[in-house]
């Protein structure tokens, strides 16, 4: 009973917050609603007994990805009111994407129920979440896992290539040089006679 109530609360908050991501006028508020959506989704994972996945979702998406979103949204000086003027012209494309997604979800749900409603928990009940993940991720899906890692590596290298510029005449600090300095190279003690000056 409580689990059902919790599910409906979390699910309705997730859907409502997801709607507000699109609907809210202030982009920073949008990101905040996005975070709320992630949180509700994490709550749903916990209800299914997948606490590892839930915490990973919070750590990766809320703790890192959404922080970067917030960073970008705060830094960019984009006139979002101006952007939203063309909103209706994108509506057909958005509608088509939404319709395809809806169809896919309906198909997924139908397939699930036709199969007699398989349990969503790990096949071996004695395993913890983490062990269950590791047991398939590094054996059965090791290839796919490593491929995903390579895709991320390519993305990282791509970001570096796009932003790294080799400019002439840039002064850089070298930490090694700074730390290798001694008192002798930096300070010269001069004993000056009174009334004579340096020159």
């Amino acid at each position, binding site marked *: 009973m409580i689990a059902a109530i919790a599910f409906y609360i979390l699910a309705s908050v997730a859907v409502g917050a997801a709607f507000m991501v699109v609907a809210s006028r202030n982009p*920073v508020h949008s990101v905040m609603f996005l975070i709320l959506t992630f949180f509700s989704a994490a709550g749903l994972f916990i209800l*299914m*007994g997948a606490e590892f996945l839930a915490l990973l979702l*919070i*750590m990766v998406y809320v*703790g890192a990805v959404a922080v970067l979103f917030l960073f970008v949204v*705060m830094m960019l000086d984009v006139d979002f009111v101006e952007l939203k003027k063309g909103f209706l012209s994108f509506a057909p494309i958005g509608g088509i994407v939404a319709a395809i997604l809806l169809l896919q979800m309906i198909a997924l749900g139908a397939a699930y129920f036709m199969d007699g409603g398989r349990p969503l928990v790990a096949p071996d009940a004695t395993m913890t979440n983490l062990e269950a993940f590791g047991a398939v991720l590094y054996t059965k899906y090791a290839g796919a896992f490593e491929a995903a890692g390579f895709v991320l590596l390519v993305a990282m290298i791509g970001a570096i290539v796009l932003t790294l510029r080799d400019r002439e005449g840039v002064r850089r600090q070298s930490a090694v040089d700074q730390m290798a300095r001694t008192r002798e190279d930096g300070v010269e003690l001069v004993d000056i006679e009174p009334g004579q000056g340096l020159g």
Partner: protein
Amino acid sequence: MIDFAALPILQTVIAIPAEDPGWGLWVLMKLLQVLGFVIVLALLVAALVLADRKIWAAVQMRRGPNVVGAFGLLQTIADALKFFFKEIIVPAGSDKFLFILAPLIALVMAFLAWAVIPVAPGWVISDINVGVLYVLAISSLGVYGIMIGGWASNSKYPFMGALRSAAQMVSYEVSIGFIILTVIFVTGSMNLTEIVDTQAGGFWNWNMFRLNPATEFGLANYILTPVLFYMGVLFFISALAETNRPPFDLPEAESELVAGYQVEYSSTPFLMFFFAEYVNIMLLSAMMVILFLGGWHAPIDIGVQFLPGVFWFFLKTAFIFFLFAMVKAIVPRYRYDQLMRLGWKVFLPTAIVAVLIVSGVVVLTGAA
């Protein structure tokens, strides 16, 4: 229907009988535990703020707070009362809702992480299997309080402070993650209680030292000794950066940014930020004790426990906090580029190499 009592994350040290959920009682029990934790933490924060100021004063050969109460013991309470009774000023151009929300987020996230911290055998609100991950996840959310607070103030210095803080906390979280990974490999568990239990029996068994060849990895323990000791030191330094403590207090660098993200805050919201900062410092001191310094176990095991486990836990945490305070008094502030260089070019590569060494030892000695 999902069985409420069978959810792993909700299972606690106080065993719930499977046939009789009695969840009303359970909720009441948990609420009392949470209340107890919050009250004790609040009192400890009051004591720690005073200790911080006293230690800092002693290093600078001053007396520190000594007027309110004997030895200034009531100084923090007087300060807190002052903050409560002041007027809350919300800047005219600010985003009012987020402006008030930000300190709340900071404070709630700081307390939330304590839900899985075991302070003595069985003294934990929720003993979950992925405790380490939970602490990492929740502490990574603390940055939102600072970022939103800095942005919602609609002012230059808070915004700069917020940006600095976000970049700093995200950077050091990465290396903290890798450092904790070495401990997880060695102990083979993400449950904080189990991590502490593998370090029982004297300081030579603690993760930071691992000098006992009779334990799990045999003589390979001596390969782990320098690596894990170094990881312990790195964890401490990363904890300084994660809590925005000096020498990494750039988000609030008063000489350049006035007070960073909290410039526009006054009264109770400011107090909340302040409170959250100290609760976070305590959390990371406690994590250091749990992961590297044997939790509630006594430094030398004489077979009989005269003192409750929580005493040792508190003593060790207080010692780590003392180190926090000493670093604040002794080390000058880093430049921002030095801070980033240290995080990404020194800590992260060494932590990754340490993960490789530790996982290699664990696999080769066959203990896994």
